[in-house]
């Protein structure tokens, strides 16, 4: 029997809510902020229709705290914000990492720093999404480039959160959040949905942090037959505070390892025309749209240009970027910041490949023409290697 499909023409922000509900999310706590407010509005309408709950908190600090609490009670939970609110969430993001509570944080990026230009797009939170909260940790960050991504990738976001007991950052931007496109809201097969593992031991034997190698311990919800101790302080396997150096070392490595060592499961990229390229455009989020258009225009001019879209931003898709650096004469990184992702690309460039950025921070999207101009510039400057 075929599954139901609903074809709609909606904003990315609204598609994210449908994706979250399809993934099984039933709790939203948030504080409205442009350009993410439609996520709050759609959640307030849709969640109670599905026996879920929407609550508007007094600030973003409380919002992320409430979703962590709700997830600890067993409900898949999410919040949405933009730059200023994302900054406020950083401390409690660390609680979700330390207590290993699954949740999804949507950041619809806008121009910053500070209040910046509230209604305008940017991609300036690329590094903050990785390193914003203090202390060593791993994190999963996914970035949509279409309204369909807002639905489909949200399911991945919740699946990763549940599988690895971790917060997942859904790093959208104003372009993707506000654009309206056709989207297929499909009924998701239950095999596609991952729910956090549940313990099957005797209650007195349960330890919420008794992890397997590169995996995570089952997480029982509050109110079940198990007693659960969760803590943002450094703790032992039972959840009691523990200041032993060997214990701290073990757990802090675990927060990174459980993400980094599952790289192959987590990293998603999309490759366009990479079989035979001179120049690869490495892009993410809304800028991918311009990169794809630039690629099509360049191909019409007979130039061998391809696009590597990073869907997973963190852990950084190193293997795929290294392939691009090896297989291309030049790599161009268009991003709406002064060069955050290009730092990662250059870090991996042991191959003397030309790496250049196309950057805008004036609140306007990068146009395909600007990328084409950069392609021409790189070709001219590097005429020796291009032959």
């Amino acid at each position, binding site marked *: 029997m075929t599954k139901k499909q609903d074809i709609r023409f909606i904003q990315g922000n609204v598609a994210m809510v449908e994706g979250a509900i399809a993934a099984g999310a039933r709790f939203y706590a948030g504080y409205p902020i442009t350009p993410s407010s439609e996520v709050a509005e759609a959640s307030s309408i849709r969640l109670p229709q599905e026996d879920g709950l929407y609550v508007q908190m007094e600030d973003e600090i409380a919002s992320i705290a409430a979703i962590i609490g709700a997830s600890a009670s067993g409900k898949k939970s999410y919040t949405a914000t933009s730059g200023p609110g994302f900054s406020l969430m950083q401390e409690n993001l660390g*609680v979700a990492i330390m207590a290993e509570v699954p949740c999804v944080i949507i950041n619809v990026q806008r121009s910053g720093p500070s209040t910046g230009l509230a209604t305008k797009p940017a991609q300036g939170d690329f590094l903050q999404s990785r390193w914003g909260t203090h202390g060593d940790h791993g994190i999963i960050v996914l970035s949509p480039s279409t309204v369909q991504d807002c639905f489909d990738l949200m399911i991945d976001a919740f699946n990763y959160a549940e599988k690895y007991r971790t917060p997942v950052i859904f790093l959208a931007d104003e372009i993707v959040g506000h654009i309206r496109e056709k989207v297929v809201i499909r009924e998701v097969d239950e095999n596609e949905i991952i729910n956090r593992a549940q313990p099957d031991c005797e209650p007195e034997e349960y330890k919420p942090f008794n992890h397997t190698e590169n995996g995570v311990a089952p997480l029982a919800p509050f109110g079940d037959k198990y007693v659960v101790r969760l803590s943002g302080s450094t703790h032992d396997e039972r959840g009691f505070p523990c200041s032993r150096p060997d214990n701290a070392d073990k757990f802090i490595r675990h927060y990174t390892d459980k993400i980094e060592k599952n790289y192959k499961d987590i990293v998603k990229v999309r490759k366009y025309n990479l079989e035979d390229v001179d120049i690869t455009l490495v892009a993410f989020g809304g800028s991918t749209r311009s990169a794809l258009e630039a690629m099509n225009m360049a191909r019409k001019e007979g130039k061998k240009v391809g696009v590597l879209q990073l869907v997973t931003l963190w852990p950084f898709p190193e293997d795929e970027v290294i392939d691009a650096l090896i297989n291309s004469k030049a790599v161009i990184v268009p991003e709406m910041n002064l060069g955050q992702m290009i730092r990662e690309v250059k870090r991996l460039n042991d191959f003397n490949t030309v790496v250049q950025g196309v950057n805008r921070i004036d609140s306007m999207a990068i146009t395909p023409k600007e990328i084409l101009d950069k392609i021409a510039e790189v070709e001219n400057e590097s005429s020796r290697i291009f032959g």
Partner: protein
Amino acid sequence: MKAQEFLVKEKFPLFWCAGCGNGSVMHAIVRCFEKLNYTRENTVVVTGIGCWGKGDDYINTNTFHGTHGRALAFGTGIKLANPELNVVVLMGDGDGATIGGNHLIHAARRNVDVTSIVVNNLNYGMTGGQYSGTTPCNKTTSTSRYGHIEHGFDLSGLVAAAGAPYVARGSVYGIVQLEKFILEALKKKGFSFVEAISQCPTHFGRLNGMKEPAGMLNWIKENSVSVSSANQLSDSERENKFILGKFADKEKEDYSTKYLRVIREAKKIKEGGK
């Protein structure tokens, strides 16, 4: 379960200083758990950071130990996602009333069915006795050596004004009355708040001429008046007193109960749309 059975004895002795009031309040809480037949499984104790934020180390129910000032926000999510749980939020005056003051008044206004117990020892004990949002004017702390020039919150008055259906202030000196307030608060459907005036002989007491625990307890006792007799006092006289008693005790429909109506309305719209 007996009160004693809610304690994590293997973690004793308590981390708190000799003469601290926290142990007395904690014991009153677990005595109430026994009276109300709470279980370890259906109860969540939520804490923030500070001396009283260590309270969950010694209680063997479900626990959630969060960040400084945010315990009520974590507790809000825990309760709303599973209204069957007994959610008890333990905070100090620095944690719950200073850095977390905004969450406190909004929790009181929102009326989620959690019980919050603020132990108010008039200063930040954990970090060395700096002034908090409840330190009285003119008192000495490690960051107000020349006398404190700000005024402390009347916390119970604040929370009552924010709309909480149950608000009471007791003291560690009057532990029997305090325990009665905690019991009533736990039973109350909706947001309930108990403020426990407590002694910190190590810091606040030492810097204000009361370094013996009994000295600060006596000071609390001598400066305590009941809610009814406080009505006769002028504003300036009231400010230097601990006004003990109930500030609110009324019925008010809680958030989760009201939200059932939201779900009913939402489903009508959804069905109508089909």
